[in-house]
């Protein structure tokens, strides 16, 4: 009995799925009398059960050896597709994080979407989402993870498109789906190739396969790049980063999950794939390059945003970029800790801004101010969340960085510079947003702003407490993921100055943020150079224009060309042949009913000619 919850840990993802299925009568409008709320409650209950089940299993998994459960899903010929799940403290811990944040976000959603008529549909989708997320957490099979990533892509599409009557939402949902799909598809190519080269698709099998991999470096590079593409889309990394920003059109409770655990799951798969990247130095380098470019670029973009959600969502991309860098360097444990600390901190910040958006019905930070005294819980959440994301005060990210710089890994000057830059820019951005939203005089739109009701306040406060406790994890984390044995060279000069420098960068960021001249009511700078740079950042380096001029243009033009070719050349030729055969186009186009003998004659004649030609050909070949 004791082990029951541990042995059935694989069932946890099914709670969400069952919840989603049970809400169908409400979300489809079959039951109208009760309103949509029962559907939401059912889902909450299922998520709660999942959380409890996961917690007990997590508790029991400590000290247990890691082992896999294999379910042979599909076997045919020489192919055996098995769905493997892993029982280990790490996988169960990740699942715990997912179900926990989902539970909080769902309680939060009760308040946030209180008056939405499609509440049940929202909860059904959240249940589906949660199932996919917690499935990835425990999955030990690349195939299963891929399938679940695709489920996530689908549910992102549906959740972002939740308010589908608005034009911006429609575009955002489409972009989110297609961007992720591009990544997923390339990932699928990688999976197909891997599987074809004889690798089993379980992560543990891949690890042993890599040691004796029978493929050339070039093949390994291509496969590595393909495998990177999937997480690049999922984690909103350059050049597939814009969807996350646009996805902010969706309801905020889903945004909480998306910016914390959803993006993390892409990186989680990437972490599990790390052994493959060791095969190809190019793949690792690309990983580091993507991560660095995104980390710096997204941090810069965030600074110029005036939409409160977008200002934070760009920073999500930036942190995931750091995770990419960590994976590229092989610092897997750190990647994992970064994900964890970021997920909690970012979830908390999104809860906080959700409260602000609901109370003020406004997302433009230049029209806010003076909220701190009116919304204490929200302010606390924002401060704690922000502080735990910046290496400044001794909270989540600080301790993660401390672990990174503790001498267990080789730290290059470039890495330290990157971390400092991102840290400073993030600190600057958070300070800027904080000043605009919470400090200063109240503005017309922020004058009547009571603190949010308990369904939103309770999860927010609870997560605030969790965020304060987060440092325990990086401090006590035993390094069990990284393939390379930790170094012990804490006396390197770079290591000694690393943490002070990082903290200093945080201080500098905060100071600039605090001194920065704030522009209320959004006026563009009059100075041309300044305006150019501000626009460049505010419009995301015009990446969208680049998309439009390249990929989108290519697809649209080629489809138009093909369609024209189809209509006038292929079909035209056919019709021309038709005319030639029938001696008259009129017969084919307008005279159908009365001319059937004519057709039969033509067909017979044509058939005769063809038979003759074919026979002649055959005879020609024979003799």
């Amino acid at each position, binding site marked *: 009995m004791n082990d029951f919850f541990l042995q059935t840990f694989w069932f946890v993802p099914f709670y969400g799925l069952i919840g989603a299925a049970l809400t169908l009568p409400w979300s*489809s*409008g079959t039951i109208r009398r009760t309103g949509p709320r029962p559907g939401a409650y059912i889902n909450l209950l299922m998520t709660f059960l999942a959380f409890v089940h996961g917690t007990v299993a997590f508790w029991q998994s400590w000290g247990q050896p890691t082992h896999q459960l294999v379910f042979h*899903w*599909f*076997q*045919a*010929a*020489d*192919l055996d597709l098995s769905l493997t799940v892993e029982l280990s403290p790490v996988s169960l811990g990740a699942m715990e994080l997912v179900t926990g944040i989902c539970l909080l976000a769902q309680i939060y959603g009760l308040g946030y979407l209180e008056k939405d*008529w499609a509440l049940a549909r929202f909860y059904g989708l959240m249940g589906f989402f949660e199932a996919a997320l917690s499935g990835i957490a425990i999955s030990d099979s690349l195939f299963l993870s*891929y*399938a679940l990533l*695709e*489920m996530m892509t*689908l549910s992102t599409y549906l959740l972002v*498109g939740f308010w*589908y*009557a608005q*034009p911006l*939402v*429609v*575009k955002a*949902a*489409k972009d989110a*789906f*297609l961007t992720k*799909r591009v990544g997923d*598809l390339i990932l*699928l*190519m990688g999976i*197909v*190739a891997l599987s*074809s080269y004889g690798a089993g698709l379980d992560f543990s099998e891949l690890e042993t396969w890599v040691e004796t991999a029978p493929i050339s470096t070039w093949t390994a590079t291509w496969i590595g790049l393909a495998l990177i593409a999937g997480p690049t889309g999922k984690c909103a990394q350059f050049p597939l980063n814009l969807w996350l920003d646009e996805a902010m059109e969706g309801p905020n409770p889903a945004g909480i999950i998306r910016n914390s655990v959803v993006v993390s799951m892409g990186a989680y798969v990437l972490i599990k794939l790390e052994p493959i990247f060791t095969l190809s130095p190019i793949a690792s380098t690309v990983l580091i390059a993507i991560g660095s470019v995104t980390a710096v670029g997204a941090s810069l973009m965030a600074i110029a945003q005036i939409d409160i959600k977008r200002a934070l969502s760009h920073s999500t991309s930036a942190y995931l970029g750091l995770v990419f860098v960590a994976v590229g360097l092989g610092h897997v444990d750190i990647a994992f800790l970064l994900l964890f600390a970021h997920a909690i901190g970012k979830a908390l910040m999104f809860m906080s801004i959700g409260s602000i958006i609901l109370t003020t019905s406004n997302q433009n930070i230049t029209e806010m101010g003076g909220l701190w005294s009116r919304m204490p819980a929200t302010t606390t959440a924002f401060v704690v969340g922000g502080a735990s994301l910046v290496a400044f005060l001794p909270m989540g990210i600080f301790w993660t960085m401390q672990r990174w710089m503790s001498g267990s890994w080789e730290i290059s000057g470039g890495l330290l510079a990157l971390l400092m830059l991102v840290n400073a820019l993030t600190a600057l951005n958070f300070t800027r947003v904080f000043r605009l939203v919470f400090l200063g005089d109240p503005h017309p739109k922020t004058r009547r702003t009571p603190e949010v009701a308990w369904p939103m306040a309770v999860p927010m406060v609870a997560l605030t407490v969790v965020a304060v406790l987060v440092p325990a994890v990086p401090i006590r984390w035993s390094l069990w993921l990284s393939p390379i044995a930790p170094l012990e060279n804490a006396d390197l000069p770079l290591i000694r100055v690393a943490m002070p420098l990082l903290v200093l960068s945080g201080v500098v960021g905060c100071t600039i943020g605090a001194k920065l001249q704030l522009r209320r009511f959004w006026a563009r700078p009059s100075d041309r150079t300044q305006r150019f740079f501000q626009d460049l950042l505010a419009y995301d380096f015009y990446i969208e224009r680049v998309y439009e001029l390249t990929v989108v243009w290519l*697809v*649209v033009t*080629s*489809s*138009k*060309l*093909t*369609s024209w070719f*189809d209509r006038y050349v*292929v079909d035209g030729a*056919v019709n021309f042949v*038709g005319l030639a055969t029938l001696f008259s186009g009129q017969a*084919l*186009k307008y005279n*159908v*009913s009365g001319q059937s003998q004519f*057709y039969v004659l033509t*067909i017979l004649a*044509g*058939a005769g000619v*063809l*038979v003759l030609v*074919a026979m002649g*050909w*055959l005879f020609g*070949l*024979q003799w």
Partner: protein
Amino acid sequence: MLSALIWIPFIAAVLIGFGPRSLDSRQYRSISTIVSSILLVLTIAIAVQFDPSQPGMQFTEFVPWVDWLGLNYQLGLDGLSLPLLFLNSLLTVIAIASSSPTLDRPRFYYALILLLNVGVTGAFLAQDLLLFFLFYELEIIPLYFLIAIWGGQRRGYAATKFLIYTAVSGILILIAFLGVVWVAGTESFDYEQLRSAAIPLKTQLPLLIVLLIGFGIKVPFFPFHTWLPDAHVEASTPVSMLLAGVLLKLGTYGLLRFGIGLFLEAWAYLAPWLAIWAAVSALYGASCAIAQQDMKKVVAYSSIAHMAFVLLAAAATTRLSLLAAVCQMVSHGLISALLFFLVGIVYKKAKTRDVNQLRGLLNPERGLPWIGSLMILGAMASAGIPGMVGFIAEFLIFRSSFPLFPIPTLLCMVGTGLTAVYFLLMINKVFFGRLSDAVTDLPPVRWGDRIPAIVLSLFIIVLGIVPNWMSRWSEPQIASLVTDYGRPHVSVNERVSMTRD
């Protein structure tokens, strides 16, 4: 047993065709639904008795027919025909049940649909080349009338185009069949006998090419496809469902059964070119689909793109890839039938299929929320989202053909990616957004309109979650297409080296 599947609908068709005028359209629909349901039950009964582990044809029937011609009434069932047979029976029930209750000339209509069923069933079961050809031709006639009489505005043009194309296809197939019998020098058109005949590669090649074009028109592959969008656009919804769901499969079935079955060496010789053909066809279909403005045309071009994957799998000719081809046929049959059905409902309610005129149909009060949700499901299934049958079929195809033809496989995967593009564009325009003013006051959708779609969706989901239920019928047997009869067994490794040489 198998004959019953052919003769019950035939007799029913004759009886309905000459049935009393006093019965109205709705009653004829009920009668036909009952007949087709009996056929479905019968198919299931046969499937239950079918033993997948036993190689070769089962339930064989043999009646000498035209002796001097070498034509015999010879039926049999194996792992290749069974899934398609089931698909045919299922879709016939759904197509009949979803036909309009207020149809003109109902006796003729239902008689034709049942005759169509006769032709398709017969073609899947025939073990005699000439008998296959007869059934193959038989199926053209009812379909021609179904399009030409109950079709849309340009039905005459579309029906004639269909007729000419398919007739040419039939003639080419006949030429190939006559050629193979003549070259092999056998007494009859018996399939098994012909398979064991040794035909030199040089002779196989022209015959196979003729056969490829013949069936290629039917599937259809680029550049022989232009009849399909026209036929689909003009055909009524049930006919479209049958056309996309079952009739196109006759082409791929023919390629597998006769192309690979009779001309294995030539097939292996041409395989790299076939893979390229598949990639071109897939990308071409997908590109055209993106530019279409008519919902039905989008689905029709998507059909072309997805059927090309079957050719890719067939080109690889391994055990796994042939199984994948069968899975893809079933999967495409279910998904395209669902999509055509849903488009049909949209057309019926909104009176237009133009994506530029429709908007916001997902509106829960005045729109078509159920139909829209199912449409999203169908589109996602078609785009290969896991959990639905399209994913596993396509994954098997790509997985099995990648070692042999990496570049065409990758191009086909790009085609899958484009599926998401054109369906998403369509869904975004038609179902998302605010309800357009042009199409308000949609008549309510009845459960009768939803149930067929729900049934198809359930099949799509269940087979996607438990694909073994689809593959278990074919998996042990499909290999016999490549291995039996003392022919050289072409394994993957040999084929890899062959393509590299």
